[in-house]
């Protein structure tokens, strides 16, 4: 009795945020997806620390091209070792392999995994923006580290194998997740602001203002985005640096994908603005801004949240599709789309299946985003009193 009344007390005095988070965490699929997502974000942020090799061409392993994944193990036929190790693989080609390069596993030569080793240098908070014009260039040195979680003293350790050039796929996958998330975040932010402004104004005022906004929204949204991307990215010259290209692609994603949300915001506002509580607020003399922020925005928060989180994987997929055609981000930059492009060749499908590991991460990332979005939607719904 004592406990339940305390619980009730807690429920009635809880803030909106507390209620939402309680409801969100009581949803099992959302909880799992949320932790997966958090894990991915953390891993991608610390990709420099976690990956033993530079994901760019500088970190290529010339002795191990198109190499299969090497998983550390604790025992083999020669016995058990507390420290995980991998076997040495040597390049070999001869008449018996039809003169193709193959890797021979030498189980006698163990290479032990070492922890907190020094390796390639990675930076945080280091930016060098290279805009046209000398005065606009600026450079922040940031912090440089060279410690890595694990490594081996001789040769290489490639958890996910290597690609055609000998680049470590593990490191590439981690940094690709980071880049893809960054592109998506920037794109979602731009599209969010644009859709709220344009959809909100049109839906709230109605009449000819709505007509103009609607016309503009319609015009942008009716053009199929991928062909539009294709046109616009054909416009970007090849001489652009990869950073500039990154920002260009991210802003394209944002500037093209806002109309979905804007149209939904408008439709909702159109039906909502004729409700009594809006009339009441207007009769009380509330200003338009006040009504929009205090009454109308909360009435469709669930919509906005769902659409934002839903549009995030869509951003990732747009980027993937673009890079897949070869018009998005390009090779020196790692993104999930770039890695996916490498994976979709018949040769790869038959011989080098580990190229698909990044694709697996893309799928997991998108799935977890969608589940989190769904959980948030259910949790933020004020009509659901449980």
């Amino acid at each position, binding site marked *: 009795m004592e406990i339940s009344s305390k619980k009730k007390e807690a429920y009635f005095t809880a803030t909106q945020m507390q209620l939402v988070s309680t409801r969100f965490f009581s949803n099992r*699929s959302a909880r799992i997806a949320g932790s997966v997502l958090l894990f991915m974000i953390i891993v991608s942020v610390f990709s420099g620390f976690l990956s033993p090799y530079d994901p760019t061409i500088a970190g290529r392993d010339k002795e191990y091209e198109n190499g299969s994944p090497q998983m550390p193990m604790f025992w083999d036929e020669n016995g058990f070792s507390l420290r995980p190790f991998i076997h040495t693989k040597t390049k070999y080609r001869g008449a018996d392999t039809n003169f193709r390069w193959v890797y021979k596993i030498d189980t006698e030569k163990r290479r032990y995994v070492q922890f907190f080793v020094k390796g390639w240098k990675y930076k945080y908070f280091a930016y060098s923006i290279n805009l046209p014009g000398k005065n606009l260039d600026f450079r922040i040195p940031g912090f440089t580290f060279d410690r890595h979680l694990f490594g081996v003293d001789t040769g290489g350790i490639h958890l996910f194998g290597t690609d055609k050039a000998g680049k470590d796929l593990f490191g590439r996958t981690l940094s690709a997740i980071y880049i893809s998330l960054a592109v998506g975040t920037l794109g979602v932010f731009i599209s969010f602001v644009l859709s709220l402004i344009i959809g909100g104004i049109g839906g709230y005022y*109605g009449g000819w203002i709505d*007509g103009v906004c*609607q*016309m*503009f929204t*319609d*015009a942008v*949204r*009716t*053009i*199929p*985005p*991928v*062909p*539009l991307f*294709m*046109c*616009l990215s*054909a*416009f970007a*010259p090849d001489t652009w640096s990869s950073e500039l290209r990154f920002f260009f692609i991210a802003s394209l994603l944002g500037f093209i994908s806002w109309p*979905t949300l804007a*149209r*939904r915001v408008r*439709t909702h506002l*159109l*039906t909502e603005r*004729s409700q009594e509580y809006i009339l009441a607020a207007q009769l009380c003399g509330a200003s338009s801004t006040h009504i929009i922020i205090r009454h109308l925005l909360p009435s469709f928060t*669930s919509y906005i949240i*769902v659409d934002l989180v*839903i549009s995030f*994987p*869509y951003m990732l*997929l747009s980027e*993937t*599709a673009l890079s*897949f*055609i*070869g*018009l998005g981000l390009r090779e020196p930059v790692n993104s999930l789309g770039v890695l*996916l492009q490498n994976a*979709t060749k*018949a040769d790869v*499908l038959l011989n080098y299946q580990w190229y698909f590991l990044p*694709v697996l991460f*893309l*799928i*997991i990332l*998108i*799935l977890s985003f*969608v*589940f989190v979005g*769904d959980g948030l*939607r*259910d949790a933020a*719904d004020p*009509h*659901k009193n449980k």
Partner: protein
Amino acid sequence: MINFIQFTLTRAILAIITLLIVSLIVFSLMELVPGTCAERYLAFKNTQGSNINVEDIKAEERRLGLDRPFPVRFGTWLKNIIVDRDFGDSCILRVSINELLKDRFYMSLAICITALLFSYLIAIPVGIISATTKYASLDNVLKFISYLGIALPNFLIALCIMLFMTIYYGDTMTGLFSEEFQRAPWSAARVRDFLSRVWLPIFVLGWNATAFALQTVRALILDENDKLYVMAARARGISGMKLLWRYPAKHSLGPVINSLGFDLNRIFSALPVVALILILTEAGALLIEALARSNDQQLAGAIIFLLTATIIFVNFVTDVLLAIMDPRIRKGVMGGN
């Protein structure tokens, strides 16, 4: 009634204005692509062995009317499309675009619209089941399957199905026709052959759209289901399917209809990539050919214009439908009472 006609007319005029804006955007994009049509054609001729100099390019530009100012060129381009339904000649191939597209565009349209219907045919019942079921596990499984539709890029699915087909049937199932019907005139056998292959692109395109549609339907039904008017209806003793169809399902129909145009847009957007993988011989493949490979701006512009015009038409129809169906909007349209 007069109000309604007025509303329809206004919407029609708005649609036409949208079309004008879009055509301006498309035409400007065609201009933005580095290089002009004349340069591209002569560069192509250069690779074929003929010697080209600046004079030739100038002459070719004059012939194509590229030396005239932008508004004039835009006007001519638009006039030719609307009055004569003529998209001009392709930059590289030097054939009439009408000739090049012919029934390919309608084929793409048929594939996309079928994919759209397919997706809603699955999404509406499954979405309602997912929203109203008592069993959380069923809801979760249904959700998971639909989410897989979002998470798996459709070109990946296409690729996997193709690989599967090659291994187990010995036929890749790519293209829209098998070899003997590739250039044959339309006949019953060709239609049958077409139908035996076209399900793959429809499935791949629809699979992705289904996931989005399912989410929309589910979210809407859940939103409506908890509202007071539904509770009131329940209190009056209406229950089960009757309650569902008369109240929440009916109300969620509005936003669903509203999003039809955009769903079609999404399918159009996925079309080129899927076409690239499945080696389809329709407009989507032609578009990717025009944009990514040969930079044929005239052809690309024509295809984007056609796709966009279709979506504008669908949006117009859904707007009018919505005004007829949703009493809340109908009131707003036809005045106070």
